[in-house]
């Protein structure tokens, strides 16, 4: 049992850290309604004008569209490949199983800039491919596989193999067992993995920078490109505030569908 004084100190520290975590996010929300164009604090007045400006920004919508396309395609690839790898690792015993897990996790353990430069060197110098949406999708899918893999693997481990064995004993083929037994039981984990993978892809900027080339912009690339233009600041503030509000969605959805956002983001 810790002493009362220690508990009080710890509680005070916790509150301080929470303020540290949330003050910047609250500032982002406040600034989206600030009538002044600069970061000047306190805000000089309340306005919704910037929200209308952001709504009318064609660059924002185009890059948002690209982000959604990339996120959906990368998530689809990651769903298929991540689920296959998770089944192989959880349901079979073979030489090099540990290596597979390591290989899947590697793309998020190494910094994005290494992955980015490596893919860039491969696409441009080695293969001579023109960078575009397709190369971004390949890059994103590579680091999204682990998200699906982690979610699916955890669920498969919890489910055990008894029902699958029963299905096989009753004469179902592997595909029938997957389709009618395993898949319905792990739908939640797949959905959670897909949501988290999409969210990761949607926010990614480093690998994107190196695989997108100069013509294609995803939303983070567009934001970054406009971040230092003073007259674009109000629109950026609005987009930043909306993204902050939307951040709650993946956490909420993933938790509802039985994923674990705390462990899957890493």
């Amino acid at each position, binding site marked *: 049992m810790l*002493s009362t004084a220690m508990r009080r100190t710890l509680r005070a520290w916790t509150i301080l850290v929470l303020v540290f975590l949330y003050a910047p996010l609250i500032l982002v929300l406040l600034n989206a309604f600030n009538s002044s164009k600069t970061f000047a604090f306190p805000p000089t007045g309340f306005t919704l004008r910037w929200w209308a400006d952001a709504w009318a920004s064609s660059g924002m919508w185009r890059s948002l569209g690209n982000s959604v396309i990339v996120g959906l395609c990368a998530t689809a690839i990651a769903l298929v490949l991540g689920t296959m790898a998770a089944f192989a690792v959880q349901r079979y015993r073979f030489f090099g199983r540990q290596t597979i897990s390591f290989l899947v996790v590697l793309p998020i353990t190494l*910094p994005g800039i290494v992955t980015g430069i490596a893919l860039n060197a491969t696409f441009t110098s080695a293969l001579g491919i023109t960078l575009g949406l397709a190369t971004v999708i390949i890059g994103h899918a590579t680091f999204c596989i682990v998200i699906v893999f982690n979610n699916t693997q955890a669920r498969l481990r919890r489910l055990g193999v008894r029902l699958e064995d029963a299905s096989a004993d009753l004469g179902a083929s592997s595909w029938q067992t997957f389709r009618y037994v395993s898949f319905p039981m792990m739908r939640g984990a797949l959905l959670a993995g897909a949501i988290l993978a999409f969210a990761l892809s949607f926010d990614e900027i480093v690998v994107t920078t190196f695989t997108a080339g100069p013509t294609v912009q995803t939303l983070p690339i567009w934001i970054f490109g406009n971040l230092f233009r003073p007259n674009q600041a109000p629109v950026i503030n609005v987009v930043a505030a909306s993204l902050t509000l939307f951040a709650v969605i993946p956490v909420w959805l993933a938790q509802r569908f039985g994923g674990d956002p705390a462990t899957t983001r890493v």
Partner: protein
Amino acid sequence: MTVPGRSSHRSRSRISLAFLLVPPLAWLVIAYLGSLAVLLVSAFWSTDAFTGAVVRTYTSDNVTRVLTEAVFRTATLRTIGVALAVTAICIVLAVPLALYMAKVASPRVRLALVVAVTTPLWASYLVKAYAWRMLLSPQGPLTWAAGHTPGYGLIATVLTLAYLWLPYMVIPVFAAFERVPNTLIDASSDLGAPDLTTMRTVMAPLVFPGIAAGSIFTFSLSMGDYIAVTIVGGKTQMLGNIIYGQLVTANNQPLAAALSLIPLAAIVGYLLAMRRTGALENV
């Protein structure tokens, strides 16, 4: 636990294993390991002085430049210093918080705190770095509230990176504190140990692997970062900026590849050092 297919299913199970394993393996080996191999090889290529095109003949010039030129050495040391400072700040902020979450808070408050700590992870990385740009701006809230701001530079970079990666430290440390049995803490205080002694002699050894696991993320993510430093770092040059500059501005892909071997080596070294602590099982 994995239960292998029974003997009656065995021949079929080899085929289905191959069917399951080949596509993801092919993707990761070709797209990822293949790219890392190209990265290693291309560090030994050069560029044509006139056209800037990559010339695929072997040269060790890039690697020699990376290892000998003072600019690169300073940036390397600065980047490692920043990564270590960020890691230290995250530890200081996270350990008491995680202890409170695991051992003091009621179950309801604990769950709320877990959500509160993980939700900012899903807020856009760029937005969070941008928030610090607002916060630290000369006319910003910090000046208004405290009358002073460190401005944009090295301190701002360290603060922003610590902010960005803090949840990655809190989560494994919290998990480690949760695994410390309450009976041990009670026994220690019943035997007359002051709180700080209990923390140092009972909790610290048990929680250390969690801290080490968190530090892998804070260190590795800081080593490769170049966006946050561009946003709040002023003129500060980290390895990431230099690599980006070589690739995009100077169009020298081989030198960028050679430079990116530094964070790669630093992280592999850090992982190897941390492996002895049992941190990798806690990641």
